[in-house]
């Protein structure tokens, strides 16, 4: 079982690492690249805490082998804010108190970004179903849904302005 050399684009920068065939993308991000913002809550794709975006698609990084990342574009929570400027989703999560413990928050933010990238004006129901793969045990989801819908409105305004 020799190590596999992987080259990918992570948060816009080229990244290279060596991985065992059995290493998941999540473990490679956390242990090889030091990007610990993506969390492991279940390791079976049932909680969404490890959500990342690969070539524009939302996936669970615990359900993808690191070796599969070769040549792909990966976005994680660490790439969401631009320097000191928070993404509107991050800002609205703070304003709405949409996090309590904060453990599911990175995965929820990444999943919500994938939603708004695809659908700038989701309904509450669309938002709830899109985020059904992201478990939050603290908030009851209420403030999370409000924050996402509010951020969507802000992004629509920014687009109109631009």
């Amino acid at each position, binding site marked *: 079982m020799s190590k596999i050399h992987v080259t990918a684009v992570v948060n816009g920068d080229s990244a290279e690492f060596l991985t065992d065939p059995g290493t998941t993308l999540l473990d490679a991000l956390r242990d090889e690249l030091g990007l610990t913002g993506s969390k492991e809550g279940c390791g079976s794709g049932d909680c969404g805490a490890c959500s990342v975006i690969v070539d524009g698609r939302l996936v669970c990084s615990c359900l993808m082998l690191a070796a599969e990342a*070769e040549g792909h574009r990966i976005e994680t929570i660490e790439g969401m804010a631009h320097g000191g400027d928070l993404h509107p989703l991050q800002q609205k999560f703070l304003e709405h108190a949409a996090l309590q413990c904060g453990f599911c928050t990175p995965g929820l933010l990444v999943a919500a970004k994938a939603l708004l990238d695809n659908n700038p004006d989701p309904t509450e129901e669309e938002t709830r179903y899109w985020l059904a793969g992201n478990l939050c045990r603290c908030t009851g989801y209420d403030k999370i849904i409000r924050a996402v819908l509010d951020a969507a409105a802000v992004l629509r305004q920014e687009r109109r302005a631009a």
Partner: protein
Amino acid sequence: MPQFDYVAPTTIDDAVKALVAQPSAKVLAGGTDLIVQLRSGRARPATIVDLKRIPGTTGVRREADGSFTVGAATSGAALGEDVALVRAWPGVVEAANLIGSTQVQGRASLGGNLCNASPAADSVPALYAARAVCVIVGPSGRREAPVETIQAGPGRTTLQPGELVLEFRLPARPKRAADAYLRLIPRTEMDIAVVGAGVSLALDDAGNITEAHVSLGAVAPTTLLVPAAGAALVGGKLTDAALEKLDAAARAACNPIDDKRGTIDYRTKIAGVLARRAAAIAYNRAEAR
């Protein structure tokens, strides 16, 4: 996770060679079942063969005759984005799009869902009802087989050593035809189907049902195609009487188990309920065309 080799061949021949070379090898499409099994130790292959770099294994093609060819490793999300496929086979797409979360949708595929051979696989009943055909490649070349010939039992398929499912063919649709898939889960998302039902219908101009195929998931060791249930619908409109016959035929076909997800009695009753509801949706879709 147990140790194994990972190969990502770019040709069918190399993929088949890799499978032949290592009898315990497993094919990786979306990985949403396989990687969970690898982590839990339920699957201990010496080699993982990643299909996705082989041309044709991902993507949807509309053929000249109106039929569709769907790469076995195409993600559910990609299926949902193919407008023509969604219009022709709304039930197949909605079934594929019920597999797991949005995240799982980004990876899970029809090929993986079929070959994982779970009796509760969501997309499989819809593929049965659609009379889909698999294109299989292996050491002895390429063959086609009706989708319902693949599952042999929970976790077992009829694929021969070295064989893999490359793509699916979905037939062209008559003018007034549609399909639908429904499943019952305790929550609204994220669960394995307690029961699933797929229905595909074709109507004549008067709205009489000329062709009907009904399939059920999670009520037997494999997905079921239920000809008697289809026959119950053919010949007239979707009357209450026809729906009652459908309900009875669906229940009669059930051979479920009691487990943590449902009881024999419950699964049997729900099979009838979902068959009726799916038939109604498919009929309304067809009529609207």
